[in-house]
């Protein structure tokens, strides 16, 4: 078998070197009752081209966002990823190495992580960032746990503009940790006022910016309210590209910034793997979850990098660790780093402004379609629209015509919670005028 180097000959040589008669003898510790010799309901091994045919056929049974006009967002975005990114992340030295626990032969991964951490800190406007979490939603959940550790308080206020997956992941992870979650109702108008809910038990307030309906808001007043009450402000960002155009959370007063990094370097890939960004103020660094790469010197005095502050982590601290995370999103973080390195200062800004300009164009055009109302005044590359009809129906009808019209809010929030007529529509640098035509015409027809 192509991945198994041992031949029958090797096996028998090795067995006799060990001094046993068969491999079964090596499984003596397995109680007889636990040995399985029955038949699995599974196929036998296949040639590479057979596997390719089988999986290729599955892939072909999907309609993709590249096959026609597509306006899906809500936490996962279709951006162009330069070919160099994938070329580099596929280098075996990156792809097939483990966590850089042996720094002498892991300087490549370590330096890249150090660059990643710096970039994340820069774009979020924060002081430090870790070496990645699973995704934006789990980053958000960990931020609330961290706020509890920092403040020794037990209440977390979640904005109604927070992506429901982020909210649910946070609720789930907090459930058994004496954290009271105060989740606010969906904030369709971006007018939510959370300051009033902050009290002396409040560990943190979690808001998303732009929020799930697309609203871009100035968070400085909320940050002030948090800090006045001794609570932390956690800001979630589901579209990392927005940080190229919008005043960064760090500069609006955020204490922890969590974000989904998929937009940079990573494919939509039906939802994963993605990469959670996690940045904070430096004074809280010892409360942070996840790995950290840090600078140091080697025996010869030369600059190098190591994983550091590991006493926060499970492999050293066990049940007292700041998080149970071990494997993170290393390679996705590398892809993020390479993409952002290719963009650079100017490219990142231009990309963001281009996304925004397309969104402004689409918003203007959609507003002119009868039965469509664009909700946010200020937005980045995505916004909620209210339809004269059920968003799910419109999406289904247009999907049958090859148009992926957006995400019905009910897909995220559930049906019958008053959002059935809300559709979330996103664009990117890849959205062309003809795509917009298709959506506007399609919606006009459907709603007519």
């Amino acid at each position, binding site marked *: 078998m192509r*991945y*198994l*180097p*041992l031949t029958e000959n*090797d096996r028998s040589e*090795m067995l006799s070197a060990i001094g046993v008669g068969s491999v079964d003898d090596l499984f*003596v510790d*397995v*109680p007889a009752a*636990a040995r*399985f010799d029955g038949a*699995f309901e*599974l196929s*036998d091994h296949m040639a590479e081209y057979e596997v390719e045919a089988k999986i290729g056929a599955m892939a072909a*049974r999907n*309609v993709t*966002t*590249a096959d026609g006009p597509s306006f899906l967002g809500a936490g*996962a975005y279709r951006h162009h990823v330069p070919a160099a990114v994938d070329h*580099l992340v596929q280098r075996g030295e990156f792809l*097939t*190495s*483990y*966590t850089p626990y*042996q720094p*002498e*032969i892991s*300087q*490549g*991964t370590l*330096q890249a992580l150090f660059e990643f951490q*710096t*970039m994340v800190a820069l774009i979020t406007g924060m002081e430090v960032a870790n070496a990645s979490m699973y995704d934006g*939603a789990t980053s958000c959940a960990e931020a609330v746990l961290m706020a509890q550790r920092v403040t020794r308080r037990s209440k977390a206020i979640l904005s109604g503009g927070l992506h429901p*997956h982020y909210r649910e*992941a946070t609720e789930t992870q907090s459930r*058994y*940790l004496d954290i009271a979650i105060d989740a606010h109702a969906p904030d369709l108008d971006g007018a939510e006022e959370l300051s009033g809910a902050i009290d002396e038990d409040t560990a943190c307030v979690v808001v998303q910016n732009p929020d799930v309906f697309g609203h871009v808001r100035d968070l400085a007043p909320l940050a002030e309210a948090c800090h006045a009450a001794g609570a932390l402000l956690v800001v979630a960002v589901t579209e990392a590209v927005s940080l190229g*155009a919008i*005043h960064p959370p760090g500069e609006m007063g955020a204490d922890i910034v969590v974000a*989904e990094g998929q937009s940079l370097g990573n494919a*939509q*890939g*039906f*939802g994963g793997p993605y990469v959670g960004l996690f940045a904070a103020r430096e004074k809280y660094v010892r409360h942070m979850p996840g*790995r950290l790469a*840090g*600078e140091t010197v080697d025996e010869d*005095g030369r600059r190098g990098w190591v994983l550091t*502050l590991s006493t926060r982590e499970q*492999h050293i*601290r066990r*049940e007292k660790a700041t998080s149970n*995370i071990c*494997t993170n999103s290393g*390679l996705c973080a590398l892809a993020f780093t390479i993409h952002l390195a*290719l963009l*650079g200062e100017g490219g*990142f800004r231009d990309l963001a402004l281009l996304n925004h300009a397309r969104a402004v164009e689409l918003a203007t055009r959609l507003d002119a379609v009868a039965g469509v109302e664009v909700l946010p005044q200020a937005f980045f590359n995505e916004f909620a629209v209210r339809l004269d009809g059920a968003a799910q129906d419109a999406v289904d009808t247009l999907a049958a015509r090859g148009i992926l019209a957006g995400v019905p809010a009910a*897909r995220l929030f559930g049906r019958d919670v008053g959002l059935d007529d809300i559709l979330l529509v996103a664009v990117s640098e890849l959205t062309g005028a003809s795509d917009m035509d298709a959506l506007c015409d399609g919606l006009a027809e459907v709603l007519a």
Partner: protein
Amino acid sequence: MSGHSKDLSRSAPGPTPAGGVETVLGHQGLRLEEPLLFEIDNPGAAGVDLPAPPAGANRLGGLERTAAIGLPSASEPEIVRHFTRLSQKNYAIDMGTYPLGSCTMKHNPRLNEKMVRLPGFANLHPLQPESTVQGALELIDTLAHWLKELTGMPAVAMSPAAGAHGELCGVMAIRAALDDREGGPTTRRRILVPDSAHGTNPATAAVCGFAVDAIPSDARGRVDVKAFAEKLDEDVAGIMITNPNTCGLFENDMIEIARLIHDVGGYFYCDGANFNAIVGRVRPGDLGIDCMHINLHKTFSTPHGGGGPGAGPVVLSDALAPFAPTPWVVHGPDGYGLVEHAADAGDSRPFGRLKGFHGQMGMFIRAYAYMLSHGRDGLRQVASDAVLNANYVMSELSDVMTAAFDGPCMHECLFDDRFLKDSGVTTLDFAKAMIDEGYHPMTMYFPLVVHGAMLIEPTETESKRELDNFIAVVRALVARVQAGESDAFAAAPRLTPRRRLDETAAARRPVLRWTPDIPTAEAAE
């Protein structure tokens, strides 16, 4: 001349690197130094071209980002070179044996990388209408079937993003089941965890609000069943046991342990990180467990990628299945669909949601390709060869090193540091010496239950030739230990891009990011 080499003056490392000779920029033939991206920053350069953003009013609500961000700028050639050079400072499975115990550093088939990049998967948005993603949902469902078949378990939760995340899923399910049974928050407060467990086990129990109660290992490297039984009472929520365990041994008393824990109303979590040793040969479900995570990035060979991503689906018993987190795939007459909300979950009472969207699809595709490639026959062979390789290494080294336990091992073999006694050479030194010899070291100082542990997991994708080379190198190093060359060990590694790094300094005054103002280590000199 005006040609000033910035690298000379600023970012290049000192001029006399290890194992080499003095060169102008510190490069050593093909071994190249590389500054930070921020040090090659050239404002105005870019690795992308974009149409100029059209002028016109923005709708950013007056919140435009105006100040410089500080990102470095460079062209594609510079970026490609930067990351190529960085990559060359890594060791990897693609380069040689990577016997890192507990990590299952097996070959990552290239076909799997190709499959995950098929546009029909790569360009799928997770929230497309279900009708447009039937192939993707089918793949998840089929992979779930394989996982259930191979483990002999009735259900599986696919969304956990890694092993530790799977543990979270499993322990949460246990807690939800207890709450459900007790009609309110459970009164059980303890989870039993062997002292040999991986750090994620106690950490997970803790983040689920349980107290961790350590159970000792016995002289055979297994859970001490007697000590375990003594701890059992109505306060115990469950037990987390790794099987095969972190000493590389099969927990012979699994069935008995399952009976005992169930008798007191607790649940049995199995850490399946080491499933590679038994896949196709043992169905953990037959041992009586309630849940087990499977590291797709170990047993099913999705690449480790320098630390991640992975995927940690959790198989569940009938008792825990109703509490599995959303979302999951369903298959009905109209094809495949997704249950994404508790409201749509029918009789199930999901304990919540663990992450955004539906799970680590990229890992699912790779793992499924891996499974199809091996088939049921090949997967059984995987386990056999993994165990054979580990036992071969153990048998070839046992006369010069000190095996921690008697008897055959499973997929990895554990040595302690008795053979280094009084030599002046530590486990760490020995490991670092392996690096100069062209090898990634074994796992060191883990599990915690033996002194100066060296845990060697060759995996089944090492050939006998590679094993023989590895054995020869280890034996030669032992001979050097015996010859009293402890200074050489203390000085190792000498041939690497960097020698031993000062971890204490790194932790004492952490420098976790580049800043224009704070001088770097070299510039400070």
